[in-house]
């Protein structure tokens, strides 16, 4: 009775389901706070080489010539990220006035840009960071304009390594330095990339795999389902972290490999979920109608069934992103992460030095970054779940 009263009064405006969910989600403070932090991390990830770099943004040599070593040292990935950020913004602004197939243009330009920058952007291989400090000191350079954080993540101050190691936070190094003399803040900023990329790509792979396998299992049931469920059982019986460790230990440390592995081990949850949804959906009239119309399987599965079963999966996907970030930092912490690229987990691993010494700045800052990012994704996930189903609150995965 009271339920009747409540539901009657919030008859919603005629908006699409997705738009309503999105609007509801954005109205919750948890989602806003979470997205704010993710936005900050994304900003740091995209503009990392501009915010933190030992290469001066502008440099005037003794003969009065202006150069930009920072631009010259941008890698192909840096260029793609920076250009695509501005290009996407431009496309979206234009779209406010003119309707056009912006997404196709976006995809196309991403492709072109990737090919171009991979083939033409060739930053110098040998980098001597101390070079700038030397020429400035000797007067060979007149003027240099540095980034906000004037240290590259791999700048080890080779000219004075001993005094640069393990400095606690100061005005010069806001978050202190690592055991190799690198600036921690710079590494923190550059590590945003791995955190974001790992989260999204690994979850993306897991989603695609899980949705496909789960969808096929739910749609065909019978023998496909039986085999699929055995596969699911096998993968859920292997302790994930252990599989990850085995994978990385045996195949080496490669960012893309770690992403793929996280994807390969994370699909099970989504598959079980989608399977259950599809088993229910298959009985419904509109699916029967679509099959009766003779639509191809692809169309029935992905155009008619998937949109109706995907929303709860997206909720667990946002928790999945948090999980992937945690997994990566755990791997890095255990010493199985990337060697060259900075990662939060790896910095955390350096907190404890030999002989039991403890460098608090390498514990606090990266740990806080991991915590906040995981917290942010979980907040967004919770808001999304509440928006989709305010009455039913179930925890999906841990």
């Amino acid at each position, binding site marked *: *009775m*009271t339920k*009747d*009263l*409540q539901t*009657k*009064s*919030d008859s919603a405006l005629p908006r699409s389901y997705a738009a309503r969910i999105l609007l509801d989600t954005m109205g919750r403070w948890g989602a806003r706070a979470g997205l704010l932090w993710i936005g900050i991390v994304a900003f740091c990830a995209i503009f990392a080489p501009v915010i933190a770099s030992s290469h001066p943004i502008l440099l005037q040599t003794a003969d009065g010539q202006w150069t930009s070593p920072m631009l010259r040292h941008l890698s192909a990935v840096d260029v793609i990220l920076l250009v695509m950020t501005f290009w996407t913004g431009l496309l979206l602004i234009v779209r406010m006035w003119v309707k056009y197939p912006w997404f196709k243009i976006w995809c196309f330009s991403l492709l072109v840009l990737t090919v171009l920058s991979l083939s033409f952007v060739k930053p110098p291989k040998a980098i001597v960071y101390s070079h700038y400090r030397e020429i400035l000191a000797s007067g060979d350079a007149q003027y240099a304009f540095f980034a906000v954080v004037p240290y590259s993540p791999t700048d080890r101050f080779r000219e004075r390594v001993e005094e640069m190691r393990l400095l606690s936070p100061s005005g010069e190094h806001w978050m202190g330095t690592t055991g190799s003399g690198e600036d921690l803040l710079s590494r923190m900023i550059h590590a945003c990339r791995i955190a974001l990329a790992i989260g999204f790509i690994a979850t993306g792979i897991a989603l695609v795999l899980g949705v496909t396998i789960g969808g096929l299992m739910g749609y065909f049931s019978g023998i496909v389902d039986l085999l699929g469920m055995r596969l699911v059982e096998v993968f859920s019986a292997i302790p994930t972290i252990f599989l990850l460790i085995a994978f990385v230990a045996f195949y080496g440390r490669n960012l893309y490999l770690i992403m793929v592995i996280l994807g390969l081990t994370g699909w099970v949850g989504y598959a079980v979920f989608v399977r259950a949804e599809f088993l229910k959906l298959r009985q419904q009239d509109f699916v029967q109608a679509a099959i009766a119309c003779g639509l191809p399987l692809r169309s029935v599965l992905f155009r008619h069934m998937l949109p109706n079963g995907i929303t709860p999966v997206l909720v667990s996907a946002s928790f999945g992103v948090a999980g992937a970030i945690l997994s990566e930092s755990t791997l890095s912490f255990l010493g199985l992460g990337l060697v060259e690229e900075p990662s939060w987990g790896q910095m955390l691993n350096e907190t404890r030095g030999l002989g039991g010494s403890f460098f608090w700045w390498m514990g606090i800052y990266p740990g806080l970054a991991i915590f906040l990012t995981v917290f942010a994704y979980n907040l967004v996930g919770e808001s999304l779940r509440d928006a989709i189903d305010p009455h039913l609150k179930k925890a999906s995965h841990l």
Partner: protein
Amino acid sequence: MTEPLLRIEDLAVNFDTPSGVVKAVNGVHLSIYPGQTLGVVGESGCGKSVSALSTLQLVPTPPGCYERGKIWWSAKGEPPVDLLTQTEKQMQSIRGNDIAMIFQEPMTSLNPVYTVGEQILEAILLHQAVGRAQAIEIAVTALEDVGIADARSRLKTYPHQLSGGMRQRVMIAMALACQPKLLLADEPTTALDVTIQAQILELLRELQIKRGMSIMLITHDLGVVAQNADVVAVMYAGRVVEYGSVHDVFDRPQHPYTRGLFDSMPRLGEEKHRLRTIEGNVPDPGNLPSGCPFHPRCRDWQEDVQCAQAVPPLQEVFPRHWAACWHGTGCDQGNASLADIPPVSTTA
């Protein structure tokens, strides 16, 4: 004329919802006499169930709130007490003991993890000073009374092993195990098959005669009321709009809403024609129309100033037959004071 067993006076219950305050019950007057069956009829959302739940203080109180009104309960020979002012502890001794209630959904109204026996025993052990062995005997008798064969072994079954009709019988047995004086039956047959419905109603009638208890029978089915009730109260939008003995109300319905309900019901022996429906929808309880809440749907409403502006009070249009309509026909006896509303006799 004896004292009424239960008298509800000007009861109002509000619900705080995110979209504003909803007045689920808004000034209900009712009374039930010993041995009498009161039928409460109305569409879903009109406040029938909330009125019954208020009697036991069972309205969930974070969203709900007893706005005003009194519910007088007079057990034998004692001065009447207001149930709304009773403490939780006092209510616990009344619930299930003096006043019992059965609900609409027999499928979900029993705790799935306990056996039928445990659930019946719980009530008996709580209210009666008996040992466990004796309580089991009482439970068996209660189950036998509601027509369950092989009652002793049924005690050990779980609710999910029983059919809907059987579960409702168990609910009734549970409610009646402590010999309550009043039974609140909230749409007890709505979720059941028609044949089972008839059996359950028949059972209720038998038990009533045998034990002399009163029943408040809440339903949206006029046929059920006609067969089982002595007195009928028609509710609309949180108010009683017509009140009288079954004969009076069925023979000459006074409120346009009651008439609309009768018109929308097929009758035997009449020429076939399209049933008339009541135009429009039940108003949103959070946003009631001004004046008589029924006036936007009323067939008799003309540009009458009063209908849209003031809520009509419940007036005695015929002797012992009340209606809340500005167009009241019948003999005008003036406004009956709220206090002595409505002594309809059982022997009608």
